């Protein structure tokens, strides 16, 4: 029996965010916006979903009087991402003829 793919990660935008954050120490909102080419509203919603699940942490601060949002993957997020990749490779290996 296959394990089920984490539904929180099996979404294009949330998976993009997590794949970027796993390679970085932290990333600003504008960087994620640039890389994922998502809309600001959608990116905010998906970031909050990941934050609620404890997969990422979000820090809000100011730089030159402008709000600055910085995101970072949490250990729980790293584990979830690793599990997702592991399950994914099981699926792909099984499908190979």
């Amino acid at each position, binding site marked *: 029996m296959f394990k089920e*793919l984490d539904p929180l990660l*099996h*979404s*294009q*935008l949330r*998976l*993009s965010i997590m*794949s*970027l954050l*796993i*390679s*970085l*120490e*932290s*990333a*600003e909102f*504008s*960087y994620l916006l*640039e*890389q994922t080419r998502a809309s600001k509203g*959608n990116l905010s919603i998906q970031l909050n979903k990941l934050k609620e699940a404890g997969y990422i942490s979000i820090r809000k601060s100011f*730089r030159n009087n402008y709000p600055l949002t910085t995101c970072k993957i949490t250990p729980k997020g790293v584990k979830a991402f690793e599990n997702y*990749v592991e399950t*994914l490779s099981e*699926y*792909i290996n099984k*499908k190979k003829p």
Partner: protein
Amino acid sequence: MEEPFNEQESLQLIREMIDNAKARLEAGSFFYLLWGWLVLAATLIHFSLLYTRFAYPYLVWPVIMVVGLAGTFYGIRKSKRKAKAKTYLATSIGFLWGGFSVMLFILLFTAMKGNIHWAVFNILIIALYGLCIFVSGGIIRFKPLIWGGIASWVIAVASLFIAPQYTFLSIALSIVVSYLIPGYLLRNKENASNHV
């Protein structure tokens, strides 16, 4: 809102995003060129002053240090503003060079106390920044820096066999091969990757 996607597409997306995050080349050339030119100038001035009646040729170093540190803080501030994302590589390199600064002051203090000769200090410093250049090159996978580090080690060993005052020329030579040449090559690479 969310389009369904299959496992292959999912894997492709992960690869693409990880590659995008990795593609950010750490802008380090500014620091290599800044310190390269400053130390080269200081070394040559110090060496020239050895042949004059000036009693304090080493006074050139505190001046260079202040200019270098001011330039370094300016560079860090500028790159932090531009960066938008922080990489583990940049943090590792920062720790490495931070550690080098501490070692530099420990050795400087040791030489000032008279526990080691100035020529030995010069040789140890060449070997030490050779190590930092070598590791930095390994971290960002940039061969000219790796070779620059190795060249500095060779120069450090060769300097054991020359008269003490010429160790200043050893510093000058090692700065050219391990800071300036790789620094300019890195700058070309940074410029090329910024214009793609």
